């Protein structure tokens, strides 16, 4: 790390620390102040609509939060949502990456088209899916169902969580595809050629050469997606508002309900703290997994 500058003074040890200090301090303040305030609010009795009822509440907010059946259902929904979207995007993304790696006419255009859903704003794609695809009377899907003589499905009331998973997966599949396709391009053609000469079929090549090669890229996809999927909000807000019942209320939406529909800042902060803890637990496992993969 110790380099000699033109001036002859060394940069390293204590000196680097003092140079880094402003940036690190700023970052810490940036992170610690909101976190500290959230922790503080979560211990307060603080409802915007009841100015009289204030003061230290101790763990009351947490007590109400943890005895709320909505919390557990929201955690389950969050995990289901993240899990299914990950499965769909990773499996689908890998298959599509292999497909788009092949040479065929119009490959460039096809690739752009396949990647484009990722660039649509979440609110917009939710609206498109709600009003043009899944609408029980005007939607494309109900038209398709009817041409095959099947009854139209009222997606958001009969299959609410599935609908959300479909929308979110549609948005994130291109992301997985993009990363995995880039990884595919670094795959050594000679290796594949050699395997083929040795008599390996396409399936064997996929499982023994392509997939191991993609392992790192897949773990990166999983990590990045996980971070964003834990906070999915716009799609739920636009389509089902967390319902019917609690069917599509995830943690982010539960916090929103507490903070902006119930105006209960204390409870919402407690929910926020729980969400932070949950995200950190997930992150620890993920970072370890990715780090192990990257070391290989």
């Amino acid at each position, binding site marked *: 790390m110790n380099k000699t500058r033109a001036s002859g003074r060394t940069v390293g040890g204590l000196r680097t620390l003092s140079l880094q200090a402003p940036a690190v301090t700023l970052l810490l303040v940036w992170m610690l102040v909101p976190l500290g305030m959230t922790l503080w609010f979560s211990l307060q009795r603080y*409802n*915007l*609509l*009841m*100015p009289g*009822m204030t003061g230290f509440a101790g763990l009351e907010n947490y007590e*109400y939060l943890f*005895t*709320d*059946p*909505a919390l557990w259902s929201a955690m389950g929904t969050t995990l289901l949502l993240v899990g299914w979207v990950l499965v769909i995007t990773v499996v689908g993304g890998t298959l599509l990456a292999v497909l788009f790696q092949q040479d065929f006419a119009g490959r460039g255009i096809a690739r752009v088209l396949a990647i484009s859903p990722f660039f649509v704003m979440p609110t917009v794609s939710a609206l498109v899916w709600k009003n043009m695809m899944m*609408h*029980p*009377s005007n939607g494309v899907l109900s038209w398709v169902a009817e041409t095959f003589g099947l009854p*139209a499905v*009222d997606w*958001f*009331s*009969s299959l609410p969580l599935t609908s959300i998973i479909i929308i979110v997966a549609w948005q994130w599949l291109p992301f997985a595809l993009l990363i995995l396709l880039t990884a595919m391009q670094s795959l050594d053609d000679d290796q594949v050629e050699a395997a083929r000469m040795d008599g390996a079929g396409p399936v064997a090549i996929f499982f023994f050469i392509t997939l191991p090669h993609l392992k790192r890229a897949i773990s990166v996809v999983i990590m990045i997606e996980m971070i964003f999927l834990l906070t999915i909000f716009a799609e739920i807000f636009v389509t*089902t*508002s*967390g*319902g*019917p*019942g*609690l*069917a599509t209320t995830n943690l982010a939406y539960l916090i929103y*309900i507490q903070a*902006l*529909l*119930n*105006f*209960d800042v204390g409870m919402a902060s407690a929910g926020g703290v729980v969400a932070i803890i949950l995200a950190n637990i997930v992150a620890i496992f993920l970072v370890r997994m990715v780090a192990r993969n990257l070391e290989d």
Partner: protein
Amino acid sequence: MKLTRSLPMATLAAAIASASQAQAQTEITVATVNNNDMVIMQSLTDQFEQANPDIKLDWVVLEENVLRQRLTTDIATEGGQFDVMTIGTYEVPIWAERGWLAAFDNLPEGYDEEDLLKSVRNGLSHDCTLHALPFYGESSMLYYRTDLFDEHGIDMPEQPSWEEVRDWAAEIHDPDNETFGICLRGKPGWGENMAFVSTLVNTFGGRWFDEDWNPELDSPEWQEAISFYVDLLGNYGPPGASSNGFNENQALFSSGKCAMWVDATSAAGRIFNPDESSVADQLGFSQAPVAETPKGSHWLWSWALAIPASSEKQEAARTFVEWATSKEYIELVGETEGWTSVPPGTRTSTYEDERYIEAAPFADFVLEAMQGADPTDSTLKPSPYIGVQFVGIPEFQAIGTQVGQTIASALTGDASVEQALQSAQQATERTMKRAGYLD
């Protein structure tokens, strides 16, 4: 060199000039809902500014739920972003009690306070003083298509019962031809499905709370009312009913897809307008249906303009609010936009105006419904709260939203009515305990 130096000077001079101009003019920020009547109010900005050259209007027009969030957070944290707020009969008494709203005492002579409908005036008062002025008021009533009713030989009484409504819905319901028996609100929210569901529960003899604030959501009356609602809307409603709110239903009804629709009286002007509705010439109406009791069978709501106590431009804000709720404003809208577009349900004089009565055949119904709704006595058994389709306590927003969701899950069949009401009861008990009403 000269140029670079003179340029900032010129901008500075321009800035000073515009600043001094702004000083002479007070700019007030008006927050309102994107409902039709408010959009008309916004379009008449020029008229107001010409009459009051020292006041400039800055509009923030939002969708109802978003507006409510913005206003509540703003007023509770004393943000001071708005000088005029559009709020309803639910918020006014609660906010006034907290001292958040400026009182409208000493209204000018020409304003004619006595002309305002009494039920609306009571709804917007705290300690017998108005704390907001009504922009428009509404109750609920039943709309139906006369052509379909004639075809099936059904005679509509002045006030039908819910049972009759169900039988007619079953008879007319024809989903293959995109004609549905009845359209009702299903979209969750205290101002969406719960507004309607509360009136249904009222007329079935139920109530939200007993005299000691114990929730009664698992009572037999609620069971009966919600089962009826789920059966009626689930079997004879349009597909996707659980995501239809007021606007969606209005679109369905005006495109001729619903045989009946029970909703706000304020929709009448629009669905009676041939430019916006294909059923304008076969539109019939009657009072909202009843079951056990007529009490609380139709709601009472008013959108009103209020001034936050924290506003620094109260004088100018008052001038605007008095203008927008005056007789002259109603006259102005009648002349420029047509008499069916007049903001309804606020003044007796509107219902005495020949031009309005002629243009709007539903006027009597609306007036009768508005006068018949009594927020202080809306349930069969006595209740401790004020409000017909809501409970006038701050916690109700949270409760209503939550219960609205569970009712929606009963409607989609995710949960049985019994399960839904049980979990609604538990959630409400929790909220009431937390707020200190129950031990």
